[in-house]
């Protein structure tokens, strides 16, 4: 493995963490949106707030990590991605601003009118942000982002069948992950009614995600021949693994094994992400730009790898402590 490939693996580890953790936070916003009026939805909204409150800021940093690795390690991919896909990415960035700010604001105010306004902003932007991020991925994966200093088509690069598929898949996947996690959280907290509500939502969202994925096969066949070939050849094991994990997650939810369902759901999502990476290999911008051509100077790649190794040693234990704290309400060893 070259240093560039190592760094790309680190980037995809970051993206996977963002999809599993940040994605679930977005999905929580999706369910917040559908929780019903202020009285009926109170219990669900409280559970959502309790679940993502301490962790959302840390979960959100995975995206920053991925962006920083991309521009430092692969500046010749970062630049065209950002300039060609600036419309969906600006919209996603605005969504990120509104989501985070509104979530913090909602917690800080006490009047119902303000809580509603901030809550609606939080929930709506939680749905739009993953859609635009997924649409941007669709543009990259179909070779619609040209390398070099001339940007590609700023509209068709993300308004195309694969991007619509990517955006929709991102939204339903986030909803599926969130409902699965929340069902397990509520179960552990001993709130059966809430756990059942999230469980049935997880089943619906999981079914929807499966349907979108199956429909996606036809979309990719027509719109993204190179990616389709990659997914059905080198990436096939991961695609199969994703499908199997997804089915397993639904079966586990059906039989109320919520904790195990959470693992299977996560596996299904991560496998899709890595399937995309493997299918595109050795291209960073599908059909257009190879990993090595996109990579920055060797010295920088080495320096970045060292920083990531040191950062992992320092941060992974802290991150685990945060999750233990968020789940149990105490720090490990207390």
């Amino acid at each position, binding site marked *: 493995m070259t240093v560039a490939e190592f760094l790309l693996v680190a980037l995809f580890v970051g993206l996977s963490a963002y999809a599993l953790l940040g994605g679930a936070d977005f999905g929580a916003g999706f369910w917040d949106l559908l929780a019903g009026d202020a009285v009926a939805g109170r219990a669900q909204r409280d559970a959502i707030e309790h679940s993502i409150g301490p962790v959302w800021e840390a979960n959100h940093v995975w995206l920053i990590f991925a962006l920083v690795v991309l521009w430092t390690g692969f500046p010749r991919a970062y630049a065209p991605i950002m300039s060609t896909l600036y419309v969906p990415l600006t919209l996603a960035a*605005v969504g990120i*601003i509104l989501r985070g700010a509104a979530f913090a*604001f909602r*917690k800080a105010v006490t009047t119902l009118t303000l809580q509603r306004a901030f809550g609606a902003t939080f929930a709506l932007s939680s749905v739009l942000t993953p859609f635009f991020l997924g649409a941007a991925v669709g543009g990259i994966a179909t070779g619609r982002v040209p390398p070099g200093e001339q940007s590609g088509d700023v509209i068709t690069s993300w308004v195309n069948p694969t991007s619509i598929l990517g955006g929709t898949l991102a939204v339903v996947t986030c909803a599926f992950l969130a409902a699965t996690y929340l069902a397990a959280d509520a179960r552990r907290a001993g709130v059966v009614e809430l756990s059942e509500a999230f469980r049935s939502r997880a089943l619906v969202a999981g079914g929807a995600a499966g349907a979108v994925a199956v429909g996606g096969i036809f979309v990719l066949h027509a719109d993204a021949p190179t990616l389709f070939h990659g997914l059905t050849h080198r990436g096939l094991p991961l695609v199969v693994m994703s499908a199997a994990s997804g089915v397993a997650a639904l079966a586990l939810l059906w039989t109320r094994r919520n904790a195990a369902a959470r693992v299977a759901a996560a596996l299904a999502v991560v496998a899709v992400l890595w399937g995309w990476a493997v299918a595109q290999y050795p291209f960073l911008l599908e059909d257009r730009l190879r990993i090595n051509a996109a990579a920055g*100077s060797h010295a920088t790649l080495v320096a*970045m790898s060292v920083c990531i190794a040191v950062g992992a040693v*320092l941060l992974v234990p*802290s991150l685990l402590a945060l999750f233990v*704290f968020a789940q149990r309400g105490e720090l490990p060893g207390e």
Partner: protein
Amino acid sequence: MSMLLVASQPDLFYARQQMALSLGFHIVLACIGMAFPALVLLAEWRGQRTGDPVYAQLARRWARALAVLFAVGAVSGTILSFEFGILWPRWMGRWGDVMGLPFAIEGFAFFAEAIFIGIYLYGWERLSPRRHLLVGIPIVIAGVASAFFVVAANGWMNTPTGFTLGADGRPRHIDPWAALFNTSLWPEATHMILAAAIVTGFLVAMVYVPALRSGRATRYHRVGFLLGFTVAAVAVPLQLVVGDWAARHVATHQPVKLAAMEGVTHTESGVALHLGGFFVDGHVVGGLPIPDGLSFLAFHDPSAKVTGLDSVPARDRPPVNVVRTAFQLMVGIGTVMLGLAVWFAIAWRRRRDLPSSRWFLRAALLAGPAAVLALEAGWVTTEVGRQPWIVYRIMRVRDAVTDAAGIRYGYFGLLVVYAALTVATVLVLRRLAGRPLAAADDEGPS
């Protein structure tokens, strides 16, 4: 088609405005996000040491405001990592691997900050007091580290190093560590960190001025004011020394920026310093001249030679009045703040009390917004002073801008978003501050 794809002058204008808006907004939140945790921790520590409930009360209160401000700072910082590429893809595409390393390390520092702030804010009831205090320490360290590394990237734009320039204008022999430790880093980062302490201290103190002025102030208001004001008042004189260091660094390494800051047209020895006034037709009009003042301040030698704007062609000069006015504003506000800090120190030494004059509290009320204004003015000085370069003397801003069409609509949209965000933040903070004290004590942020 190719005509449409070439960025027109107006799009460069809007890209610049968007960057200025995003950075100008974020810089205030970033400063608060760096210095405020230290202040909250200071209050919590004093509370635990003295057993005085007022400190604990303040720490709790401030933590709630911190939760809001940190969230807004986190998201307003994230958009920057999009905008670098969206607005300036040629800059990032060409220089990303030279100057990206400090951003990566900053990313890790921010990660640590976000992790520990999650535990800290939700840990009041769940952790022992000692543990809770310990959890706060990494937030402060990571906050200062974040500032240090972000400023390292900005410092590199001012004094680019860590590469050799190829004939095609692209970097060769890249050394990312040398780029990180560029010479602007130390004065700029120190200046920034002190600015954060001043802005945060004065803003916090400002909150308690209305109560102190109305005479209904309790010990809670007094201590809240004193903690914030003291931190700022200690930082202000230090900032004077560091500011001098930063300006002398600019004089040596970015002489044209200094020439714009001071309105110096011709390279001369024994150059006068002008206080106030405007730069018209190559001269400062209406300012108060101090003979040899600039030579002395910039090089600590009254007869030193100061490089003028005419050392470079007109197209390589920044807009003088913008840079000069911003610089004068920053220095002017800093000087008044120094007076305020000295006034406070004298009164405190004599009587262990605030100055009794009504004017002191009026000035203290203004010090908060004035500190923010000085911060923005300082930022304008260094950023506009670097123009027309995005990478000093190597890459022009106009050569870095995106060729994508329609950038202006993104800018218009963001204007609305930032306006709404500012209004909502102020509204929420006012609500938090206005909440009765008793209500705030018994509820943690969870």
